[in-house]
């Protein structure tokens, strides 16, 4: 097994841990004095992120997700963690009136969002629609029955969930000020010395290649949903990667990027994704939720 690198560096009154997980650069800001504690916290967070990454990765053949997606229509008994995620996914599906659907992953077989201009044709999309729809599966805890050909994909909430889970573990070890930043999905807890905010480098959603902006955050969570990096451009029209599971096509009039602040990263992430799913109504949706948000049209 290849050892994944983890780096701890000292900063002015805190430690910065960094590693890579879920195809993103991950950072931890730890306001603890003891280097050994910092190392321990960093290891815990990294291992938790990698654990979640492996467990929910659709590229592995040895994890529960693979078993579920290759169950051939037979019921699969899932563990407590997956059960809780499935419950959560169901609530989100209901609250979004079917727009947030973790069974929509199969559509990626005809949609490749690489910035190019290859659109699938209507027939290709329609062939997959029978395999999309939470209403088609049976979820009765602890058994999940997926009809043959359907798949579940936790990619939409995986990173934010990892942030929250990592933070839970760290909070069991210390009540000092901590900040987790997994590729732009952020959570901060505790109170820093002299109540200073953390300064976090974030990228400009419009130009992922330009230098980072700096965000100052004291506590709370921030998540970004967007298609600034994954999109298609066909005949001047931009197709974002957020698909409408009912039609199989990208949401019309969607914003390029939505960032939402909430108490937990998972909640922030869901609100951001749901906002994007509203297409042109995204801003109205966010205003009604009475949360802090930032948009990139």
């Amino acid at each position, binding site marked *: 097994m290849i050892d994944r690198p983890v780096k701890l560096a000292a900063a002015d009154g805190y430690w910065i841990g960094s590693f890579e997980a879920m*195809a*993103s*650069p991950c950072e931890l800001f730890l306001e603890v004095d003891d280097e050994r504690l910092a190392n321990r916290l960093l290891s815990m967070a990294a291992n938790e992120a990698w654990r979640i990454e492996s467990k929910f990765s659709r590229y592995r053949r040895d994890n529960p997700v693979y078993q579920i997606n290759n169950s051939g229509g037979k019921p699969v008994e899932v563990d407590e963690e997956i059960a809780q995620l499935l419950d959560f996914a169901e609530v989100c599906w209901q609250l979004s009136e079917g727009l947030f659907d973790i069974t929509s992953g199969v559509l990626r077989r005809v949609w490749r969002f*690489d*910035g190019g201009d290859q659109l699938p044709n209507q027939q290709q999309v329609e062939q997959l629609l029978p395999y999309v729809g939470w209403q088609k599966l049976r979820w009765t805890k602890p058994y999940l029955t997926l009809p043959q050909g359907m798949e579940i994909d936790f990619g939409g909430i995986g990173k934010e969930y990892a942030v929250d889970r990592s933070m839970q573990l760290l909070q069991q070890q210390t009540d000092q000020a901590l900040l987790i930043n997994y590729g732009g999905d952020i959570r901060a807890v505790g109170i820093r010395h002299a109540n200073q905010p953390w300064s976090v480098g974030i*990228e400009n959603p419009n130009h*992922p*290649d*330009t*230098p*980072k902006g700096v965000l100052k955050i004291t506590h709370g969570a921030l998540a970004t949903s967007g298609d*600034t*990096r*994954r999109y298609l451009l066909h005949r001047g029209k931009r197709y974002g990667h957020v698909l409408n599971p009912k039609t199989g096509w990208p949401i019309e009039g969607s914003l390029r990027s939505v960032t939402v602040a909430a108490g937990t990263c998972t909640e922030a992430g869901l609100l951001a994704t749901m906002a994007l799913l509203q297409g042109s109504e995204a801003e109205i949706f966010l205003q009604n939720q009475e949360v802090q948000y930032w948009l990139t049209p």
Partner: protein
Amino acid sequence: MSVKLFLAALPVVLLQAGCTNLGVEPWERGRLANPEMQLMSDPISAGLDDHIYFSKEASSGGRGFAGGGCGCN
């Protein structure tokens, strides 16, 4: 002069031809977004150096416009 211009155009054309094979996916740009990885990461020092070398040598420019002339060459 025309030979020089051709040689100048050649690397640009070659680069352009090879461009579709080079590059990264939009989500792989993390490290390139680092301010230190910008091609012009320290404009003040570059400007000060340009001024020094413009005053001591016969060549100038090449990487952008110096702003504001001076009476030193």
